[in-house]
């Protein structure tokens, strides 16, 4: 079995979710690495979009910002914020990857404050940026994160970005576009989806070397179990070679 680190398996697993011909709204960092890896493996026609306006670039290296020159290098279009978000809102964007300081069992994300007093927070975080927009509009939202009970919490301090809200049909009732929402949560220990009725987070696969209990112990709420939990296919030699040599040769992401 190939030797790989935490970030490498998360990126490889995420890349496999992106099928050829799909559209994905990404930020910098691990999600961008996953999209680049997908393009260089099974999804050469994956269309990458950046919120500042870059559409379908041929990324020459890892962007530092979602608006730097690399995000529209040899792109088919250099547009703007409204163009990208409106394309998402029209239903044209299949996937997005987001993150946050906290996430609950419905995939709601917090990137605004830590603490229970909005006016005097313990920690002020950057806010939504484009996360709320992407999560509202893109068909399938995914999160790449380390499995940690401080991140996977019973209740987020602030719902910056919508997941399945309170589960069931609450997301539709809130008025958000129908049938879009959190899809998969990919961590260093396994992969979760959301049970179709309750919309609660559910473990569907565990990474080699981990068990359901490991994931549960590093999660602040009770996880559901899929009827059959499989073992995640570890990164292949080919995936690792492309990731290390072509996607992130300076180890900006995989060296973290």
């Amino acid at each position, binding site marked *: 079995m190939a030797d790989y680190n935490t970030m490498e398996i998360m990126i490889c697993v995420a890349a496999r979710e992106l099928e050829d011909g799909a559209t994905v709204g990404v930020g910098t960092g691990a999600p961008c690495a996953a999209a680049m890896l997908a393009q260089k493996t099974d999804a050469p026609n994956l269309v990458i979009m950046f919120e500042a306006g870059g559409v379908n670039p041929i990324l020459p290296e890892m962007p530092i910002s*979602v608006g730097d020159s690399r995000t529209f290098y040899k792109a088919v279009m250099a547009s703007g914020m409204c163009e990208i978000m409106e394309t998402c809102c029209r239903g044209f964007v299949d996937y997005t990857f987001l993150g946050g300081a906290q996430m609950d069992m419905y995939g709601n994300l917090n990137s*605004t404050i830590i603490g229970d007093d909005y006016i005097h927070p313990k920690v002020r975080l950057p806010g939504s940026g484009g996360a709320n927009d992407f999560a509202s509009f893109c068909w399938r939202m995914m999160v790449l994160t380390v499995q940690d009970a401080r991140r996977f919490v019973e209740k987020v301090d602030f719902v910056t970005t919508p997941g399945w809200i309170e589960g069931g049909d609450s997301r539709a009732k809130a*008025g958000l576009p129908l049938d879009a929402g959190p899809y998969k949560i990919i961590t260093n220990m396994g992969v979760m989806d959301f049970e179709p009725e309750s919309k609660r987070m559910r473990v569907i696969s565990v990474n080699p070397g981990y068990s359901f209990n490991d994931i549960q112990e590093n999660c602040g709420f009770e996880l559901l179990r899929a009827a059959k939990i499989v073992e995640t296919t570890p990164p292949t030699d080919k995936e690792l070679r492309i990731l290390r040599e072509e996607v992130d040769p300076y180890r900006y992401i995989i060296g973290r």
Partner: protein
Amino acid sequence: MDVIEEGKGGLFTDPDPDKARAFFRKKSRKMENKLMMLKEAVEKFVHDGDYLAIGGFGANRTPIAACHEIVRQGRKNMAFAGHTSTHDFQILSAGKVFNRLDIAYIIGLEARGLSQCARKYMQSGEVEISEWTNYSLAARLKAAAMGVPFVPTRNMLGTDTLKHSGAKVVACPFTGKKMTLQPALYPDISVIHVHEADVFGNCRIRGIMISDDDLARASKHLIITTERLIPNEEIRRDPTNTVIPYYLVDAVCEVPFGAYPGTMPYEYFSDEVHLQEWLKAEKNPEDFKEFLNRNIYDCPDNFEYIERNGGLAKMNELRMKEFLLHKEADNGGL
């Protein structure tokens, strides 16, 4: 349309389109020479208490030289659009220029890390805030550019972001679906950095627009900083490339490397070393004071700022990097 839900965040500008029309009615349509020094433009058009917006995206085609000048001149009590703001926000926070803030993205410098100074200022309780998203602020500028009091969007629903915003939710009269109404945002003063402009203010931008087309149209006053001036004949030779027409513009300032240390597409890449120096200096108040003096308060203008951080040799290096030639020149590290 009955309001179903509304945020408790404040509005720092009036979304009334007739008030905006009354203002624009009086704005000069004269195609006259608006060339001036950046110092003079900021003195003339950026006032304490005004609502300020900055073009570009954080450290990409952002008028950093203008941000320095605003801090250098000690502007205070402004309202600010924290729309895709990163290094601009860091600079304006260092000068405590604003005390009212529409937040979409603040404090962070994306993959580079977080500004300790900006975070401290935001946790001090000195700043009145309202919560939004990048698209919401873009949509608010679009509403203003359209000359209407709001535009409907489908974001923010079901979240605390909505509860702490100034948006309102209504049922659509056609479909019954819930829509978020984003109130028009008319900044008093904005600054946008462009590739080329003539002395009248006709501007060309290359690469992504972000929200600057709408920002230019929404703003009551607009300062343009440009990498270089071009003759009006060139504008007229190829009008397809004009993205900001002269009548939106109050001042034109030729500021080469005006987006440094950020990226200017097709011109120069960001100076990651200098941006890290900022983040590092902020960790120690004494270091930071000295850093700000050296780069802003005791620095007369952008030419000297560039000189103090590597001069033309550095600019040439960043130009190589923008065109990906650094990969051949060295090991390609940042």
